[in-house]
Structures are given as C-alpha cells and as structure tokens.
C-alpha cells in the first residue's frame, strides 16, 4: 500500500512544480490506480485536479489533451474520432471497466512510460509530443527513450492534427486483461507509422518496417515481406502473459490485419 504524509492541492502549475522540487519523495498524483499498487511512502502528494487540465481541445495545428483527462473521456471523444478514426475507442474500451477508465489519467500513464499501456503506442503512431512544465515540448518518442524519470510535470499531449486512417490491434487472454502484444498503425496520405507495445517493454516505433512500406509503390504487396521483417526489427521478450515466440507470431499476424484495415 502506498502512503503519503501531506496532500497538496496545487492552485497553479508553478506552485505544483516548486512543491515537487522541494523533496525527492514528493510526487504528482495522476489517477492513483497504479500508484496504490506500490509499496512506497511518499512525502507530499501534489494534486493537479484544480488546474483545469481535463480537456481535449481543437487547436490550430494540434489536438491537445490535458494531463488530467481520463481514459473514459478519450474513449468517448467525438473530436478524436473525427480526426483519428476509432483508434482511441478501440484501444481503451477493454481496459477493465468504465469506473476504472474514469479514474485513470492520460498524464500519469504517459509520464510513467508503462510498457503494458494500450494508449502509449496509439500516441506514438500518431506522432504525438509531450509538453512538460519545465522541459518544454518534446517528441513523445524521445521522451519515452529517456531512461531517467524527469523531475517535471507533464502538462499536455499534443497530437498533430490530420485526418488519418488508423488501426489498433491487440491480443488479450480475456476481454479486459492486459494486452499480450499491441500495435497501433496510422496511415496519413500513404505514409504509414507503426508502433508496437506490450513487447512486454515500452512501446517503440517499427521504423524499418515503416520505411519498407513508405518506399514501396504498392503497400499491399509489401505486407508479406513486412510480416517477416517486423519480427527481426522489434525486440520482443517473454513474460507471464506470453512467450517471445508467441509474440513473434502474433505481431506478424496483427501487422497484416492492421495494415489491411488502414488501406481500406
């Protein structure tokens, strides 16, 4: 069980950030669903609930998602649906239940870089950026590759605004379980991006496989090639949910299914 000694309701981001820096054992609270599964005692827990970070808004070049937006709002957002198809709904709808998705926040999921996340590969395939209070705007891919956890606050996620065809594929042992493997594919003007998650490590982009498709005259013809290729490119591993070789088979099969979906 996790515990903390002081609850701090921040009234501005500046205040939250300066409180965060005061002590190594101070933390920013997200949905607290996973935090409570840990066994750490924290000093001050900083709550961003009052900072109006719960929004999905249509900006000039980006769709901007506030850090405190919950998964249920992403799942049911008609704005996201209009630009990116049903990828958010498909990726999120099987994460436990409505109540759980109402708790879980976008900011905490991305900031914690959970390998099992179904959301992170979707954001990665859509070429998202993260806006950090101190660190400014950086590519999500770069942020995920950092090994150190920053002492910073994730303020919002920025997704380039473009109407694209998308597909989310995953295999779960039962309907609301964690994915054994998942992948998100985006097709914008015949430019394909593919992100693979639950490998079981952090989600990554399948850059060489993307190149294979993007240099080809006929994407559909490359599918069989790419199915062999992606297994060599993406490092997969075994865990309690599935073996490495099972994941290799799944990844190839899901890639074919996903690519066909974004071409239709």
């Amino acid at each position: 069980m996790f515990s903390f000694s002081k609850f701090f309701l921040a009234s501005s981001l500046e205040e939250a950030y300066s409180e965060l820096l005061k002590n190594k054992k101070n933390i920013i609270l997200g949905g607290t669903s996973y935090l409570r599964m840990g066994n750490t005692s924290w000093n001050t827990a900083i709550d961003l609930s009052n900072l109006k970070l719960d929004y999905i808004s249509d900006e000039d070049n980006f769709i901007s998602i506030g850090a405190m937006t919950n998964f249920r709002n992403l799942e049911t957002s008609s704005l996201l649906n209009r630009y990116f198809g049903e990828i958010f709904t498909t990726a999120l709808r099987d994460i436990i239940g409505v109540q759980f998705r109402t708790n879980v926040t976008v900011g905490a999921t991305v900031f914690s870089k959970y390998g099992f996340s179904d959301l992170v590969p979707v954001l990665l395939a859509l070429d998202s950026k993260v806006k950090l209070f101190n660190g400014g705007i950086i590519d999500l891919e770069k942020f995920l590759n950092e090994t150190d956890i920053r002492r910073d606050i994730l303020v919002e996620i920025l997704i380039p605004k473009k109407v694209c065809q998308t597909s989310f594929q995953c295999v779960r042992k039962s309907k609301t379980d964690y994915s054994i493997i998942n992948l998100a594919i985006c097709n914008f003007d015949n430019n394909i991006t593919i992100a693979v998650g639950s490998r079981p490590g952090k989600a990554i982009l399948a850059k060489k496989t993307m190149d294979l498709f993007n240099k080809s005259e006929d994407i559909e013809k490359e599918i069989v090639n790419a199915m062999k290729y992606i297994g060599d490119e993406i490092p997969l591993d075994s865990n309690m949910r599935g073996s490495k070789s099972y994941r290799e088979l799944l990844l190839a099969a899901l890639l074919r299914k996903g690519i066909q979906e974004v071409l239709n």
Partner: protein
Amino acid sequence: MLLTTTINGRKKEILIKDDDYLLDVLRKEGYLSVKRGCDTGACGLCTVLLNGSPILSCSTLAARAQGKHISTIEHFPLEAKKFASFMTSEGAEQCGFCSPGFTLTVIAMIKELENPTDDEIMHYLNGNLCRCSGYVSQLRAIRNFMEDMKHENC
C-alpha cells in the same frame, strides 16, 4: 484534513488522513453498502457515484471528493428495490455482495446511454465482477428493469 462533501444529498464534514482512500472513509462513516472486494481496482464492488459518474472508491483518494457529491446505493432506494426484484425473478442474484456496486453502475448507465444494445450494456458493465453467477440472467434483469423505468418515465 477536513473533508467537506455531500453524501447521499446530505452535507458532511469528516476528519480524514491526507492519504485515506474514499472506500475506507465511507465504510468508517457507516456506509457499509460500499463493499471492499479486490482492493486493487479490478472488481467494481466498491463503486460509488462521484458527481453522477461511477468511480472505484478503493482507487480514489478521499481528498478528491472535496466539494463533490457522493452517492451510494442508499441514495436510490426505489431503483435499488425495483432492480433487486427483477434480479431475483431472473434468478440472477445469489450472495448479493456485488449488488450495490453493480446496481449503481446500472443506474449510471441508464442515465448515460440511450437505448443501449446488449453489447453496449455488457461493455458498460465490464469491470463489475460477480463470482456467483453467469451474466446472462443479469442481462435479462437489466433489460426488464430498463423497460420498466422507461414506462415509468412516460
């Protein structure tokens, strides 16, 4: 810290620890219809409505209910009684331990979804586990309950 909140329509001031979870606070205050199930956010038994939305009280900090409205099953005596009668007439209810959380989620679903299909109902109620029964009789009971509520509202 002092938590000022409204529970089942009544304003309450409760002295809580900063890191208390809502489930513990509610049970300590005597709202024993809020059940402790898995305590990991997976079973839905501890569901309450926070400003009308179903949430897991085992995963929500009590401090986050500051100034908000919490509803437990006691807030809906008529709906709860009626729903229970439809559940028992379908043979869906066995030990009843999951009923408060389940019924609250059904009440929230009826407010949120208009004419849901069976698939939509099942999807909305995923995350409410019942260890005694299958879910087919529960679905029949929900359908009958919704039909009855619809006529009542006419």
